[in-house]
């Protein structure tokens, strides 16, 4: 299967790096969107690292996912600096707009809603990250307007 060749290639790219598992999983996830059981099994075979260890790593770090996710991952911060600046109202509004709870993906597979821990841009709290882009000074209305833009982008070039 071509998928397997891609995984093998990624693993080989790191032949000269000591203990590269996290890098391998990042690249593999970038390629396939998520880390399925068959993908992880192949990584285990190719790296000769036991599957139990690989599964342990894949489920430990929040940037890895073993489930398929939406096109845009919304990471909302609700840590104390965001919390005292009104993040709760923003989170409630986002949930209402998307119709899903945290940890869930919308039915059209455009958005996955998650929490993130502090993104280190607390001076513009409350904040959220959509894929690699960060947004600050959010209000419930502003957050929804941003997500509407993404939704338009997401439905137009599926």
């Amino acid at each position, binding site marked *: 299967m071509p998928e397997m060749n891609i995984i093998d290639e990624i693993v080989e790219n790191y032949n000269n790096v000591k203990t590269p598992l996290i890098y391998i999983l990042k690249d593999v996830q970038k390629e396939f969107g998520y880390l399925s059981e068959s993908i992880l099994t192949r990584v285990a075979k190719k790296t000769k690292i036991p599957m139990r260890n690989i599964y*342990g*790593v894949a489920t430990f770090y*929040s940037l890895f996912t073993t489930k398929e996710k939406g096109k845009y991952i919304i990471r909302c911060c609700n840590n104390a600096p965001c919390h*005292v600046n009104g993040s709760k109202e923003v989170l409630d509004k986002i949930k209402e707009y998307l119709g899903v709870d945290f940890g869930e993906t919308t039915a059209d597979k455009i958005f996955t809603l998650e929490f*993130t*821990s502090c993104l280190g841009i607390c001076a513009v709290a409350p904040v959220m990250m959509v894929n690699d882009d*960060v947004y600050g*000074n959010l209000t419930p209305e502003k957050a929804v307007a941003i997500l509407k833009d993404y939704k338009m982008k997401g439905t137009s070039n599926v």
Partner: protein
Amino acid sequence: MYRIHILIAMDSHAVAQGARQVKDALIRDLALAGISDEVKIVETGSLGVSNKGVVLVVFPDDVYYVNVTTDDIPDIISEHLLKGRLVERLHFKRPGAEKISEKKAERLDKQVRVVLKNAGIIDPKSIEEYIARDGYEALGRAVTEMTPQQVREEVKKSGLQGRGGAFFPAGMKWDFAAGTDADQKYIICNADEGEPGTFKDRLILEGDPHAIIEGMALAGYAVGATKGYVYIRGEYRMSIEHVQLAIDSARANGLLGQGIFGTGFNFDLEIREGAGAYICGEETALIESIEGRRGEPRDKPPFPPVEGLWGKPTVVNNVETLANIAQIILKGSEWYKGFGTEKSPGTKVFTMVGNINNPGLIEVPMGITLREIIYDIGGGIPDGKGFLLAQMGGTTGGILTEEHLDLPMTVETLRDIGAGLGSGALLVVDDSQCPVDLVKNFVEFFNHESCGKCTLCREGTGRLHELLDRLTSGRGSEKDINLIKVLSSTMMRGAFCGLGQAAPVPILGCLRYFEDIFIQHARDHVCTTNKCEMEAARKGVAA
């Protein structure tokens, strides 16, 4: 030669507020006005003003413009750049400059930028600009004129304490690693910044990455390490990009690699990215992560300077600690001790967040008071609200109230009241907030970030969350408060690592100063701020 320089902050705060678009508009409109060859645009790190949108500084006039949008660019060009008139509506006067009394001014005048010397002044993507401000001079001097032991002595004499939060003497850590025999040693820069409210490391990495590289190379020379790793949070994309660029250009200029400054000293660096785990800020968990495993802390001893990465002696230093090193070597320990207090020498970078008018990054001498930080530099609390509490040092930090406003902020004074400087994050909370709701928020964080290795932390944070949920929803009783106290003190004594041991600190702190409010929630099911919803009480299903 350029007639005018425009600095534009391109840190993460600024980018989140549209700095890239403003820069593009500036380039376009300068060309339209035909003055592209007179004005040089310089991207810098944070300019120290973080919640005022896109920030520009026009030199040589030293004028700050804030909340700049693409629509404002034509005005700035036609008024300021062409006619030399200020655009008043965008003009920003640096905070604190006028209001403070003379005595305080004297004290604030002592602000010397050590760690943030270059941040917001140089283009972080240019090694030439770093070198022009004495960059790599300390490294050159150390490897050609000093022995490794002399470098360690100088750092020890400076009294520099680790800025990751534990304030362990940096020179002593280096001595342990230097004193261990091994064929390979490592230097790790801990850039896994994740403590809520903390973004000092991010702004140093983004604004002055060469300072970290130079600090790491000096550490390598001092302890006999030839290889270093910068472990950066996976979420910090811009930090990773700037540090990688800096490593590449240092290598291209012979400042990393083999035979540095024509001596026999070899040192090279690599970035390792995290993958999203707060616990990896703990140094042994960080090492586990570099080794490709789950980031769970190791049993100590042995400590990393004796047995660390891949079993070899390893020094793990925080970003801010490393940013001090070159300055100490260049200007000497006596100069460094001129800042701060006797037991807490040097400066400290604080991030001010929460309910405060001028949130952002400041560097002040150790020993400044909370009142000076919040009211003089931070501009006070917005919307005329009052001060409820401050939390110093991140989410595991101690709680400070009204009575501590005039306490000098040093390692020892805070330790005496059961708090600490921690990561330097100062969360200011106004009196419209509820301390019980706030504690529940802290506990949600710990519960989410507990790595699960030890029972006390894994289960303890979960049970604490349940108890606080009872209090904030009107299902609680006074027994719950007692349980919170017992569980907290058990965790402090029995959890495996710093996370579980420190998690109860802010909980017990809030309980100590606001016990009456907790009792009100537990017994009367009342939250006067309405932050807690108390639904169960209204429905009459209280326990």
